């Protein structure tokens, strides 16, 4: 069953409570946005759900699909690709099978030279390579932390459409503090304020 359910989840770092008693369910068919100002706990919440948070104290229950134990699509801005590889090496190793893969690459990675070393890419180009690889091989749960932060308009738009498409079949949580990213139709939002309070709504 592809759902993620948080039951009475409380997260605190040091003495300050970031989230108190959060209960929510995330399922495919809609995009789930985690919003709030800097320091509100958006990234921490995604790390907790990803199972990679080391320093926060966590109480409550996180129910996840069985596959989530083995594979999770977790994107965070600090993820760095191996700098010794050339773009072509990375793309060749990550190109998925099936129709549409080349079109996706064409829209998301249009101008990045294949012969350039990854260590020589701009932040936005690098982030696009990471996102392209991760979204090409999506796990049942996708946790994306500020995925569009460094992207220029056209690639950001292409990636947003791609993420929305994936949300039809996968659980997708996107953390952002950008007001420019507007939720649509059936999207669900969880607003965090950093004091432990939260609100959920469409």
């Amino acid at each position, binding site marked *: *069953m592809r759902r993620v359910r948080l039951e009475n989840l409380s997260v605190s770092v040091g003495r300050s409570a970031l989230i108190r008693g959060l209960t929510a369910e995330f399922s495919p068919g809609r995009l789930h946005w985690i919003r709030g100002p800097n320091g509100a706990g958006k990234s921490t919440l995604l790390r907790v759900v990803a199972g990679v*948070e080391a320093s926060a104290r966590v109480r409550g229950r996180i129910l*996840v699909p069985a596959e989530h134990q083995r594979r999770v699509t977790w994107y965070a801005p600090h993820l760095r*690709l*191996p700098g*010794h590889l050339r773009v072509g090496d990375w793309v060749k190793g990550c190109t998925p099978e099936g129709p549409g893969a080349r079109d996706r690459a064409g829209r998301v990675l249009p101008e990045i030279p294949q012969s350039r070393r990854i260590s020589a890419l701009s932040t936005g180009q690098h982030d696009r390579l990471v996102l392209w690889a991760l979204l090409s091989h999506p796990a049942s749960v996708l946790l994306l932390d500020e995925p569009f932060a460094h992207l220029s308009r056209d690639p950001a738009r292409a990636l947003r459409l791609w993420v929305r498409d994936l949300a039809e079949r996968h659980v997708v949580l996107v953390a952002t503090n950008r007001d420019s990213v507007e939720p649509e139709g059936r999207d669900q939002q969880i607003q965090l304020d950093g004091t432990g309070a939260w609100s959920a709504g469409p």
Partner: protein
Amino acid sequence: MVGRTLIRQEVLRVWRRRTTWLALVLMAAIHGTGWVAATGDDRLFGYGYLTCLALGVRPGVHSDLRCGRVHLLAYGLHSPMAYVSAKTLVGMAWPLALGGWGFGLAVAFSGGDVEFGAWHAALLTSAGVICIAPAMLVEVTLGARFPVPVVYLGAVLSGMALVGAGVEAESVLAGAGFRVTPGAWASLAPAALRAGVATLLTWGGLWVTVSRERRRTGFVSASLRPPRGR
């Protein structure tokens, strides 16, 4: 994505590093000097190999952990099994490749003394493989860019401590698997056995390291059951 993509990326990492090529040149230089001097002292063979190993072994696990690449590669794109196996395979391939290079040099510089080159290459390859597990441990725990010199230092200090405690030097060498007779292939068996164990330890240690990157504090998980009626 399959494991061979990771192996290819690891091989490229070693291949494109300047220290790899510097190490190979240094080994040739040290080795050649030994033969030109015609000393007949096989320690020079060892010095060249150990210098090359010290410069060339950089598993990169520490930087993978620091930059989130373990999450990206082991949990996002591949699998922990593929990641750990690729790191172990390529980590072990480097001493093996050095062994081949050393053998070639020995044969070339000695004007065709195959027996000498083959035996010493086998001995030092075993030593190199044994080094990889502690080198990965040092890299992960201390973040050392060149972990092998730290391993050498640890080995020398441990040996000195044991000898200081009254253990005979011959026994220390035997315990490490290196009480060998030049040219006698059977005397290499203890070192080869330890190299095999070290390979398993490397794989196991990496597996534990990678596994610890998930399911940290407070993470509770369970499979959701489908609603009734389905």
